[in-house]
């Protein structure tokens, strides 16, 4: 380990020891109580669980043709991975060993970064593996890159860095998956840098096991005319929090953040997003939907910051929530921080039950009450998924999401 990497790790560890886990007294964590992590995993909850030596059963994402990196409990599994030639894609672990200087930037803990917390510090101090991806200028992978994070319980800290050169293009899928009954914590940080004109489509699929906690952070910085599109899907885990920070740093950059939560039982899902318009002529679109059943709890906080001088900012945000049960709850808050006049910022929030007129229309066509309700629920969620261009992923998510809800008789027929 090189000197500076070691120093960085130590500093991050110190910061973590000082900060610990955020508490609900912290405004950004008001609705999400992380004390459960300690209750579940004990005092040393941060201690990484395994070495990744044991290969965990694969999941199939039918129809997906992609380059692949598989991780077991936070560790890269080269045997089950397949990487494209011509671009630099390595595991963080091997890069740390071979060229430690190169990972200093990626792993650095910045205490002043928005929404950073003790969890981010722990990640900087402890992340042992992840993916490091460099797509050179004017290059486009012939297939998407699929990062499959399998876990079997316990704690894993992952750090992933994605860098796209000028006018490079990448479709990347981060898929967090667990099928076990152990308690655990996934602590993942993904940093994405887009050079001028680069385009990145990012699917982030959270299908953790029932007793898994999940903490995610996605930090995107964008140069001129680059574009970033996020599809975040939250289906699994008992407690899941994801912070998305998108910085539009140069003229003409654009981002599109989309999210879907489908929560049942006592699941708790929280997304805090922050879009920074730091330059003129940037645009941002944000649309989050949630379907909440049982006693589940959804939290959405969408902050848009428009810096001084960011003329012709064009921003729109929407958050729609469907509550299927009287015990489900949502806390949603759009936040605008505007330091410039010449901006367009539209936002809308809805929280509601199924639409009575739509329900009556379906029933009047002979569809029984229960099925009509399910149909409208599926349609509501599916509208969010309709923005996904990758059909295999969309189908996979539809099946996984709708399997959580009372199923309709002919789901496959409906999805045609």
């Amino acid at each position, binding site marked *: 380990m090189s000197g500076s990497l070691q120093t960085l790790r130590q500093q991050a560890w110190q910061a973590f020891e000082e900060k610990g886990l955020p508490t609900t007294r912290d405004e950004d964590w008001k609705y999400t109580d992380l004390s459960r992590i300690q209750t579940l995993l004990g005092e040393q909850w941060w201690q990484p669980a395994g070495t990744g030596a044991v290969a965990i059963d694969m999941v199939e994402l039918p129809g997906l043709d992609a380059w692949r990196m598989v991780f077991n409990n936070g560790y890269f599994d080269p045997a089950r991975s397949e990487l494209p030639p011509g671009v630099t894609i390595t595991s963080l672990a091997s890069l740390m060993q071979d060229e430690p200087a190169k990972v200093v930037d990626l792993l650095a803990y910045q205490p002043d970064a928005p929404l950073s917390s003790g969890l981010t510090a722990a990640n900087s101090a402890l992340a042992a593996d992840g993916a490091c991806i460099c797509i050179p200028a004017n290059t486009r992978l012939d297939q998407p890159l699929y990062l499959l994070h399998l876990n079997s319980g316990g704690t894993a800290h992952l750090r992933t860095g994605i860098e796209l050169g000028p006018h490079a293009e990448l479709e990347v899928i981060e898929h967090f998956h667990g099928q076990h009954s152990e308690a655990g914590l996934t602590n993942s940080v993904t940093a994405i840098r887009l050079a001028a004109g680069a385009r990145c489509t990012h699917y982030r699929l959270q299908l953790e096991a029932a007793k898994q906690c999940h903490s995610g952070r996605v930090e995107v910085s964008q140069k001129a005319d680059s574009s970033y599109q996020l599809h975040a899907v939250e289906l699994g885990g008992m407690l899941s929090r994801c912070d998305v920070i998108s910085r539009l740093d140069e003229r003409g950059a654009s981002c599109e953040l989309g999210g879907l939560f489908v929560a049942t039982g006592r699941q708790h899902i929280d997304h805090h997003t922050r879009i920074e318009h730091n330059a003129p002529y940037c645009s941002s679109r944000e649309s989050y939907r949630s379907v909440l059943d049982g006693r589940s709890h959804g939290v959405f906080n969408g902050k848009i910051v428009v810096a001084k001088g960011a003329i012709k900012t064009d921003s729109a945000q929407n958050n729609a929530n469907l509550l299927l049960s009287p015990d489900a709850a949502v806390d949603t808050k759009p936040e605008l921080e505007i330091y410039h006049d010449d901006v367009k910022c539209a936002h809308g929030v809805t929280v509601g039950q199924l639409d009575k007129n739509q329900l009556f*229309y379906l029933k009047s*066509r002979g*569809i029984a009450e229960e099925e009509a309700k399910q149909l*409208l629920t599926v349609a509501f969620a*599916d509208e969010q998924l*309709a923005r996904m261009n990758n059909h295999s992923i969309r189908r996979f998510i539809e099946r996984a999401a709708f399997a959580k809800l009372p199923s309709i008789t002919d789901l496959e027929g409906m999805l045609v």
Partner: protein
Amino acid sequence: MMIKIENLHASVDGKEILKGINLTIGAGEVHAIMGPNGSGKSTLSNIIAGRDGYTVTSGSITYKGKNLLEMSPEQRSWEGIFLAFQYPVEIPGVNNTYLLKAGVNARRKHHGEQELDAMEFLQLVREKAKLVELDPSFLSRGVNEGFSGGEKKRNEIFQMAVLEPSLALLDETDSGLDIDALRIVAGGVNKLRSSDRSIVMVTHYQRLLDYIVPDVVHVLADGKILKTGGKELALELEERGYDWVRQEAAA
């Protein structure tokens, strides 16, 4: 007899809207209901189709010998009641064809009939789409999603053709249709006329009745049927408005 409505009183939020409707429609008959805005025409159609939010305070509706008011909206549909909405609702994400397939098969199941498979159903909808000259691209779109006003109305009649009701209530199907569309859609409805299918048309305009000639015309005003006549009554209304009907009824 298809349907018999006797002394029907209904209110919304404590406000009485229907004030004693009496109406009997025989099998195969086509009735037109005309009347001023807000007189209760849509309320009557909605109550027949089973929309909630209305309180029937007295009276009865007997449909094919059964007490209609006891049935859920879906049961009414299975028993052959169809409402073409005055304002069809958009349902993004629910496929038009899927909706109809689910509806048709739920009804078949209810009657102990074999459900249609995908191929049979596709054939059925294609054939029915031709009847109202509905562009097949509408079949795979979300229900009424982004349809123009006229397209929505055409879609309603297409749905009627697929669901083959015994009693169809067409609530202002003509409004929103352009001149050519009106002719086409009315032509479709005429092809659907049969001795075992009754049709009620709610309309403000005589024009529709030139295409679909009714057996009986009613005037509904202030929550009551004030006058009933033949098709020539519609012509008279077009000329003279509704005041004279009210005065006549008051006398």
